[in-house]
């Protein structure tokens, strides 16, 4: 086994067993907000215990260890094929060790070969940059929250959503309403305004690489994020849809160009078991630094 492969197994292990610090802080704040003695507070306490237990036992936070999504920033000339081979070997080994569930099945036959490898699994996104660093980010996204993602095409008369920011807000809040209970809230939204159908969802997912406590550098999008967060947390949906004060832990939005004829709002939902980690790799493939 090569060094890179070992680093990636460790990245998978830690991503599956630990939520990053920014998420952990947001969950603790939510627990404090919920009224003692309510089923919402009970749910948040179980969530908090679960995070602590998974980390201590180094076992998956959630049994749905999700789609395995790698995001790789690398210098020009980096051997992407070798990386892909190492990533596939790491996924297979991490599955054998129980860091990942046998979670990937043939789309048509439903057959599960127990390796988590197959067409599109794992998914790798490469992005070249001019610097020398190799940074690998990993998101494990479970099916429950993936199933409540939604894409809106504006205008949408039923939502009174026109082709403007207000319309985008209505679309996103509809997604929050529809997701209740099903996506393992309190959750985090990744939103993309614009793009085509495929890139819209792609960019919405990229938002999950941002820290929960960051602020959008674009003041218009920053306000958009805050507005949605504030309204959503007044709806009384609460943890697991049990009713309560915290419906969302965060909203992260971006805008990408669209063709004049299309106006998509793509919403990806991430459950509270927000599994995201990243590493900066040394030249020989060792982990030099954790990114979250």
């Amino acid at each position, binding site marked *: 086994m090569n060094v890179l492969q070992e680093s990636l197994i460790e990245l998978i292990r830690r991503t599956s067993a630990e939520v990053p610090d920014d998420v952990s802080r947001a969950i603790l704040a939510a627990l404090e907000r919920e009224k003692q003695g309510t089923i919402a507070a*009970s*749910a948040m306490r179980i969530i908090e215990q679960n995070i602590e237990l998974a980390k201590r036992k180094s076992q998956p936070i959630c*049994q749905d260890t999700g789609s395995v999504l790698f995001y790789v920033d690398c210098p020009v000339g980096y051997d992407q094929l070798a990386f892909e081979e190492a990533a596939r070997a790491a996924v297979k080994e991490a599955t054998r060790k129980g860091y990942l569930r046998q979670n990937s099945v043939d789309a048509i036959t439903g057959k*599960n070969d127990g390796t988590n490898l197959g067409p599109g699994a794992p998914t790798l996104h490469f992005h070249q940059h001019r610097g020398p660093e190799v940074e690998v980010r990993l998101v494990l996204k479970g099916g429950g929250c993936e199933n409540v993602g939604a894409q809106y095409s504006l205008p949408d008369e039923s939502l009174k959503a026109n082709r403007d920011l207000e319309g985008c807000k209505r679309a996103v809040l509809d997604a929050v309403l529809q997701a*209740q209970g099903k996506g393992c809230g309190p959750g985090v939204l990744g939103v993309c305004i614009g793009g085509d159908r495929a890139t819209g969802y792609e960019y919405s997912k990229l938002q999950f690489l941002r820290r929960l406590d960051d602020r959008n550098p674009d003041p218009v999008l920053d306000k958009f994020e805050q507005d949605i967060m504030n309204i959503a947390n007044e*709806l009384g949906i609460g943890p697991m*849809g*049990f009713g309560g004060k915290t419906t969302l832990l965060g909203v992260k939005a971006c805008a990408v160009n669209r063709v004049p004829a299309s106006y998509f709002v793509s919403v990806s939902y991430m459950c509270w078991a927000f599994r995201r980690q990243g590493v900066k790799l040394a030249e020989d493939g060792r982990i030099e630094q954790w990114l979250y």
Partner: protein
Amino acid sequence: MISLTTPLDESAVRALKVGDEVAISGVLFTGRDAVHKYLHEGGALPEGLSLRGGIIYHCGPVVIKDEAGRWKVVAAGPTTSIREEPYQWQIMRDHGIRGVIGKGGMGPRTQAACKEYGCVYLHAVGGAAQVLAERITAVRNVYLMEKFGSPEAIWEIEVRDFPCVVTMDAKGQSLHETVFASSKAKLEELLAAQNK
């Protein structure tokens, strides 16, 4: 907190109401998409297995074999239940189950079947795979493993104080319906207020 022990009897189940926190001890049977579709299409339960008075848990656990070759559940939270909405009522009717554990709630057909056959929907905390796995004390058996693979198989597991909330009771009440209606009304009110 109300303690329940399997097999559940009908009167105890009918006495439960939406919002009750319960702790279950006894036996659970996991079953998710493949099992529900299979039973719906008339598939037979494996020999020796009866679900009567039992609880189906919508869960695809992570299970490994320890050094001694025994099954060990290492992660076992609920999966989204609504996918079983087309089938659940029939399993309540034909197999005499008294409880379903899952997440996200279920629809009107399941709600009606809960009332008719004396069954409740119990909500476990989604994603809490470790806390819930700790309440699993033993794996008794596994069925349909060859056919469906590990996450989709029926795992017969022993639990102690497995925590859930009743969100659909046998009286026709659903917490999911109530919260959906109130949050929808609140959203309309907030959107209308900001446009004034």
